[in-house]
């Protein structure tokens, strides 16, 4: 973990209630896809956690969905703004377990961290299948970006306005894969874990106090007792979680 100042370089809406920020600054504490950052928002007390969508040595990309007062305020942030960021939090995904044909499943605001994961898996020569779930076509984002990485992409919408109609679980052919990675709403993750006969890991979301393990605000129950989503997570093996 490192406290850094990032400068907002690019900020645009990419789908309904969904925004992309490109920020420049020190990313040396990011070592694994699936890690997150805690951003201090002027006028708000607690930092806000965001998964990292992508990064390089010069900066990082965050994608956020407007869900409350904090993210609503963020939509007004302009280029050149400096943000106080706790960078490189959490453990991220375990790439070594992917097998040759990993399945990546993202739901809504859970899609962003899968992008970096997909990029690294593709660079390792893996053939990733990405299933992206949204409520409706206006919310769909990053379909083209995943395709550009060379992944097979399946888009699902609840209302059927784009791609497969229904839940991501309807579009997951687990039998064709040896391992899955997922990030999204809790009901989606629960359904995936109960349906999938293959091993996998899920990235959890929780309201956090600190984001670095001090406050016990974001505990999740596992087979070995409560663990911190921010510190031992946010990624947990399917088998470890007690739903």
């Amino acid at each position, binding site marked *: *973990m490192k*406290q850094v100042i990032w400068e907002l370089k690019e900020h645009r809406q990419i789908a309904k209630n969904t925004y992309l920020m490109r920020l420049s600054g020190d990313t040396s504490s990011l070592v694994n896809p699936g890690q997150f950052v805690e951003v*201090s928002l002027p006028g*708000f*007390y*607690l*930092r806000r956690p965001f998964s990292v969508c992508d990064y390089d040595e010069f900066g990082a990309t965050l994608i956020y969905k407007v869900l409350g*007062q*904090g993210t609503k305020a963020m939509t007004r942030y302009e280029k050149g703004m400096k943000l106080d960021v*706790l960078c490189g939090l959490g453990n991220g995904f375990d790439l070594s377990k992917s097998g040759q044909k990993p399945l990546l499943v993202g739901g809504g605001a859970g899609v962003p961290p899968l992008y970096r994961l997909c990029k690294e898996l593709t660079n390792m020569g893996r053939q990733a299948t990405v299933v992206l779930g949204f409520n409706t076509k206006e919310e769909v984002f990053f379909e083209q970006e995943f395709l550009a990485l060379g992944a097979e992409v399946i888009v699902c919408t609840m209302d059927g306005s784009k791609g497969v109609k229904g839940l991501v679980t309807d579009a997951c052919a687990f039998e064709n894969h040896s391992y899955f990675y997922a990030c999204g709403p809790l009901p989606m993750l629960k359904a995936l874990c109960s349906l999938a006969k293959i091993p996998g890991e899920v990235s959890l979301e*929780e*309201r*956090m*106090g*600190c984001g*670095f*393990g*001090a*406050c*016990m*605000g*974001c*505990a*999740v*129950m596992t087979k070995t*007792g*409560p663990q911190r989503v921010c*510190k031992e997570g946010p990624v947990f093996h399917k088998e470890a979680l007690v739903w």
Partner: protein
Amino acid sequence: MVNTQVSLCGIRLKNPVMAASGTFGFGQEFARLYDINCLGSFSFKGTTLHKRDGNPTPRIAETPCGMLNAVGLQNPGVEKVIEEELPGIAKIFNAPVMANVSGFSVSDYVWVCELLDQCEQVGWLEVNVSCPNVHGGGMSFGTQASSAAEVTREVKKVCKKPVIIKLSPNVTDIVEIAKACEGAGADGLSLINTLLGMRLNLKTRKPLLPFVTGGLSGPAVFPVALRMVYQVYKAVKIPVIGMGGVSSAEDVIEMMLAGATAVQVGSANLVNPYACRDIVKDLPRAMAEYNITSLEQIIGGAH
């Protein structure tokens, strides 16, 4: 040269700044970021007789200038704290630590305090009779003078080390409870624990926290904490540790002027992991600005 040293129940602290229980874990997360030996001390995570998994999530909510928490005393239990956490603390912190203790019965408090009292690293016992986030324990002991005094009296019987009672602000008259604890033998008082609050989710029209209520902390509560420290200092002879929204060296000085011998920093650690270190670093500057050469000399200076 300015003198930041203070003495708390006979133990010298290099400065009055301590991290508050529940915001600093057992120190490990912070020791990775800076040398925590710069602190006067810290009060470790509230420890109970048996391990506790805590409350359902979400446990945290934003508020104007602060936050609510309903963690619910998640901790590994006193045995594990002594076996695993205290040896861990020994590697990162050289001075005595404050052992924060919570319970659900008087015998819980007595048992846990007796065990921790025997640990060499423990300098003080901070008996939390004010946790608002558990049912049937915690705060229910601290909201009545008679039960607060009973816990104090029984814990004092088994402890050789100074016993500090952590008081709840969720009472009509904190002075009455402070005096009752003093009368029962408390060596010091720490105040305030969090203020009981709540928030609603406008979409579901239900409480944001599944526990319904949570403890309010952060800069929002600083004036309330300061007022209570001021009132309690005036009414008792034992030292008072002030806490509640402290976020700067100036806040530390203000708390001390109101009557605090030492000052704990809580929620600030969560939003700025370097908060305690920054406050300690900044103290000499703030002292010079207000013509203070010795912090010990300003305790209760506002009275």
